[in-house]
C-alpha cells in the first residue's frame, strides 16, 4: 500500500510517519502532485495558522489537487479545518470539501483546548471497534461546529465536530498519532478502508 503524507511545510509530520510505522506500514512525505494522486491513502496534516497554511497550499497548487482526489484522504487537526468552507482564523477560504465554517471557541473556556477529551456519536468505519466515550488528544483554538458530515462529536463549552466525513474525505480534529492505543486503532482503520 502506498501512503503519502502531504508535505507542504505545515506541522509536525514526523509523528504521523512514526505512528504509521508502528502499525507496520510505511508512509512517504511528498509535495509531488503525481505521487499524491497515485497514492492508495493520503494524509493531509497541519498545525499552525490557517490562512498561512492556505497560502502555502495555493502557492504549490495543492488547493486544486486535494479536493479532486478519489482515494481515502484523512485531514488531521488543521488539515481537517482547511477541508472546510471557511476559517475564522485569518479569515480564509478553505478547500470547501466539508460544508462548515470553522470558528473560535468562546472565552468562557480556556483557549486553546489542550488535552484529552471524549468522542461520542461515532458513525463511520473510521471508528470500527472504538467504544463510545473513548479519549483522544486535541490541541486547538478553533473548531468545526456540528453538521451533517459530523461522524464524531465532542464537547468543549459546546458540541463540536471531532471528526468529519464526506465520501472519500475524512477529517479528525484530534491527533490520532498522539492519542495512544485508541488513536492507533483509528489510524489503522483509515489505512484499512
Amino acid at each position, binding site marked *: 500500500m502506498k501512503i503519502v503524507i502531504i508535505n507542504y511545510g505545515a506541522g*509536525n509530520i*514526523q*509523528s504521523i510517519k*512514526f*505512528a504509521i*510505522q*508502528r502499525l507496520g506500514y510505511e508512509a512517504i512525505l511528498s509535495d509531488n502532485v503525481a505521487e499524491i494522486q497515485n497514492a492508495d491513502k493520503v494524509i493531509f496534516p497541519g*498545525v*499552525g*495558522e490557517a490562512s498561512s497554511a492556505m497560502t502555502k497550499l495555493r502557492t504549490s497548487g495543492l488547493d486544486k489537487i486535494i479536493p479532486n482526489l478519489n482515494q481515502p484522504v484523512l485531514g488531521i487537526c488543521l488539515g481537517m479545518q482547511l477541508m472546510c468552507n471557511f476559517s475564522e482564523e485569518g479569515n480564509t477560504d478553505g478547500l470547501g470539501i466539508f460544508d462548515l465554517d470553522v470558528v473560535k471557541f468562546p*472565552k468562557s473556556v*480556556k*483557549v*486553546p*483546548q*489542550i*488535552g*484529552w*477529551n*471524549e468522542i461520542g456519536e461515532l458513525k463511520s468505519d473510521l471508528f470500527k471497534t472504538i467504544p463510545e466515550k473513548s*479519549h483522544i*488528544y486535541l*490541541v*486547538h*483554538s478553533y473548531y468545526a461546529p456540528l453538521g451533517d458530515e459530523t461522524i464524531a462529536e465532542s*464537547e*468543549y463549552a459546546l458540541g463540536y465536530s471531532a471528526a468529519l466525513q464526506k465520501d472519500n474525505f475524512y477529517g479528525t480534529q484530534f*491527533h490520532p*498519532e*498522539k*492519542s*495512544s*492505543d485508541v*488513536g*492507533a486503532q483509528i489510524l489503522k482503520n483509515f489505512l484499512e478502508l
Partner: protein
Amino acid sequence: MLTKRIIPCLDIKNGRTVKGINFVDLRDAGDPVELAEIYAQEGADELVFLDISATEERRKTLAELVYHVAEKVNIPFTVGGGISSVEDVDVLLQNGADKVSINSSAVKRPELINELVSKFGSQCIVVAIDAKQVDGNWKVHLVGGKVPTEIDLFEWAKEVEERGAGEILFTSMDHDGTKNGFANKALAKLSTLVNIPIIASGGAGAISHFTDTFVDGKADAALAASIFHFKEIEIKDLKQELKKEGIPVRL
C-alpha cells in the same frame, strides 16, 4: 469533557535521565525512551523532557533523543531546557516534539514568544515560569530558580498570554521538593487572570495534593518528577483516586 492531565517530568543530561529512577522492571534506568514508553503505558497523559546538559553537543543529542521518543511513544511530549531561538525550536519540532517550553530566554527577550508563535503556532509554545515569594510577592526567578528578578509572576503570565503562548507551566520554587502540595493560591489566581491552560508544578507528595491542585488551584494539568520515578505514587492509582473524587481523568 476535557480531562485533567497528569504529566511526569524527566530530567535529561547528555541524552540520559538523571534523577535516580526506581523502576525494577526497567532494563536501563537511564534510558529516557524506555521510561517514556512505560509512563505512556501506565496512563500518563503527556510527558515533559527537561534538558539540563551543558555540553557543546547538547543540541544534537537532544534532537536525537526527541526523534527516538517520537518513534516509540504515542502520547504528546514537550521538550524544554536551554531553548533560545527559532532554529532550536524548528529542529525539535521537525524531529517529532509536540511542544517546546521556553523559560529564561523568554524573560530575557520576550519577543521570542511572538516569533515562535508566528512561525509555529500557539499550540506548541509553552512558557515555563519559575517563581517564589519575596516579601510576600511572587517574583519570577531564572536559571532553575537560582537568580531572582524584579518581575511579578502575574504580570509576566499576562504578558506571556498576550504574546501568544499556548500554555503556562508554573513551578513554585517555594513548594518544589517539599512534597507538601502545590502552590494552589497562586495557581488559582493565575487561572483567573489568564485564559490559557496552566500546568501546576512543584510540591507533589501525595495523591490528595493532585486533587487539591485541580479543585482549589484550578490547574488544568499537574506535573511531577520524583514521586513517579520512585514509584511513591503509581499513575494508575492516582487517576483512579482522582476519578473517585469526581475529577475528570482519562483511564
